[in-house]
């Protein structure tokens, strides 16, 4: 018994040293080469890497390499990636996610998963192994597709004016426009806004009153409310196309019997704002209307001849071939009068394996409810 546990201790130390050596090699590369350029994993490197990792599943579990698929190794790797992530989560401005040691640890985790899946496959029993397989194979697929697979992702930003067709856009972080494999016609951009609101503001600090617990009144005709002892009524509210919203309000101070009334407006790019003064220090003002929903009616053309009509909205991208078109922005100075819409175009050929991995792990998490902490 003692001899056996001593042997285990030795393998443990060997595995620990191996992982340490790989991590140190990562740090060395980081020093010499600098940040890892993710583009090196672009097709076909990522698919070859995926195949090599999968091939690990055929290695004999008792061989020296096969032992790397053990539960011990998974604990060391998980502790290691947790420590790196804590650094990533604490130190501002770090680039751990693009560093060599982080990438090597990620790689070792994928290898560990592939090896352990391979071992389980050797005498697979559905009833015993289904939960393990869903979780670990799903995670393996997810890690491969979302890691090296993401090197094939392309994203561009494209600005289109109403009634125009545009096929030039900018890549991430670059300002030079280039021709894209996709063109977009913008038929119409439209936007819904929340009502602007009336607030009592400290002119010096800009703080809304009562300080710390501000109260605001929706600018809807006929609304009344209380702000810091003032009873405020919105008598009229006007919001015409291309004009800034404005409201005629009447404010009555309960104590002191003072009544104030006048126009307030938040202004826009062309018109100045106006406030209703209460004192040297305070005034009533209108907040800018906040966007509630914005969407674009578009036609998307791909080089392969796909033509797709549809509406793109935040949270509701449009799919055209392997591309997805996202509503990204608009001319924020013009607000709802914007005649420009900005789209984000994302090409993500690995999205299917990513979703497949997500679905498998989700099913795996359901098995956890059922099985609980029961060991096999």
């Amino acid at each position, binding site marked *: 018994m003692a001899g056996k546990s001593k042997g285990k201790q030795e393998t443990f130390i060997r595995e620990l040293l191996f992982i340490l050596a790989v991590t140190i090699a990562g740090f060395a590369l980081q020093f010499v080469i600098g940040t890892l350029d993710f583009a090196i994993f672009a097709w076909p490197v990522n698919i070859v890497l995926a195949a090599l990792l999968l091939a690990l599943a055929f290695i004999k579990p008792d061989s020296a390499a096969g032992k790397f698929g053990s539960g011990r190794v998974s604990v060391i790797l998980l502790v290691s990636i947790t420590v790196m992530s804590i650094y*990533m989560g604490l130190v*501002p401005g770090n680039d751990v996610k693009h560093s060599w040691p982080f990438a090597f640890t990620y790689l070792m985790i994928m290898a560990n998963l592939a090896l352990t899946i391979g071992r389980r496959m050797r005498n697979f029993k559905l009833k015993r192994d289904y939960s393990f397989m869903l979780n670990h194979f799903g995670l393996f697929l997810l890690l491969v597709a979302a890691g090296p697979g993401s090197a094939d992702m392309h994203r561009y930003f494209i600005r289109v004016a109403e009634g125009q067709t545009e096929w030039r856009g900018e890549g991430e972080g670059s300002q030079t426009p280039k021709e894209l494999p996709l063109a977009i016609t913008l038929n119409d951009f439209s936007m819904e806004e929340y009502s602007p609101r009336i607030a009592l503001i400290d002119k010096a600090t800009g703080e809304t009153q009562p300080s710390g617990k501000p109260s605001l009144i929706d600018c809807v005709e006929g609304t009344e409310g209380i702000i810091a002892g003032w009873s405020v009524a919105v008598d009229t509210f006007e919001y015409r196309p291309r004009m800034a919203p404005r409201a005629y309000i009447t404010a009555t101070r309960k104590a002191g019997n003072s009544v104030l009334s006048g126009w307030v407006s938040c202004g826009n790019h062309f018109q100045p704002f106006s406030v209703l003064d209460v004192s040297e220090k305070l005034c009533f003002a209108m907040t800018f209307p*906040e966007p509630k929903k914005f969407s674009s009616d578009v036609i998307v053309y791909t080089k392969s001849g796909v033509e797709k009509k549809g509406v793109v909205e935040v*949270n509701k991208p449009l799919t055209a071939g392997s591309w997805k078109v996202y509503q990204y922005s608009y001319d924020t100075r013009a607000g709802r009068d914007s005649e420009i819409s900005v789209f984000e175009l994302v090409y993500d050929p690995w999205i299917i394996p990513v979703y497949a991995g997500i679905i498998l792990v*989700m099913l795996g998490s*359901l098995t956890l409810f059922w*099985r609980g*902490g029961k060991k096999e």
Partner: protein
Amino acid sequence: MSWSEFIYFAAGSLILWYNGTLALYKSKNALWGNLLIAGGILLFAAFIGLLWASMDHPPLRTMGETRLWYSLFIVLVGYATYLRWKYKWLMAYSVVVSTVFVLVNLLKPEIHTTNLMPALQSIWFVPHVTVYILSYAMMGAATIAALIALWREEGKEGELFALIDNLIFIGFGFLIAGMLMGAIWAKEAWGDYWTWDPKEVWAFITAASYLVYLHASYANIPKRKALLIIPLAFIMLIITWLGVEYLAVAQESIHSY
């Protein structure tokens, strides 16, 4: 069928659920509790079915409608887990959470009046957040149980080990489910499922810490030592939930609105 009838169905279901849960605690025979709870579930599902039939699309568009499904699903999950593991408190807990959502729907049918920014207006919002909250609750319970077990003398932990492992496994299931729903949502909203945003980094740290516990027995870590991982992981969880906005890295976050 319309929302104005909701109050009758909801009140009926809640009365059945509360009495059913009480019956599980009080009565030796579980039959009454089971009947009452199942009756409540049927009544609630009937409302959703009738509402669906009266509209031309499934009631999944507005926040109020997604909360409707959640009120039902949370009780279904709590009840299924009770049937499997006999944790009455989990059943009671899920009925309370369901009540909160029913009340929100009665008192504030449309969350849109509070200026929800466009990216948050997604059908994933409610399940993503609530599954996480559910997981947090179970991990909290597991942490308390782990501290009690550590407090006791070695060998006198009784049933606690089994309880702790059940809580951690089930809680981890919810944690992973919440995380993956967040990833799907992020893909819909921002075009990328994972960007190592600070909130995501800490969610990852939390999940990885619990994974260390789940796999600890393989590294020959004795059970009592492994229990120490649970409060540590819970600290990570609290940072993810409440602490991220206070960290220096938070300025880089898209999760703070």
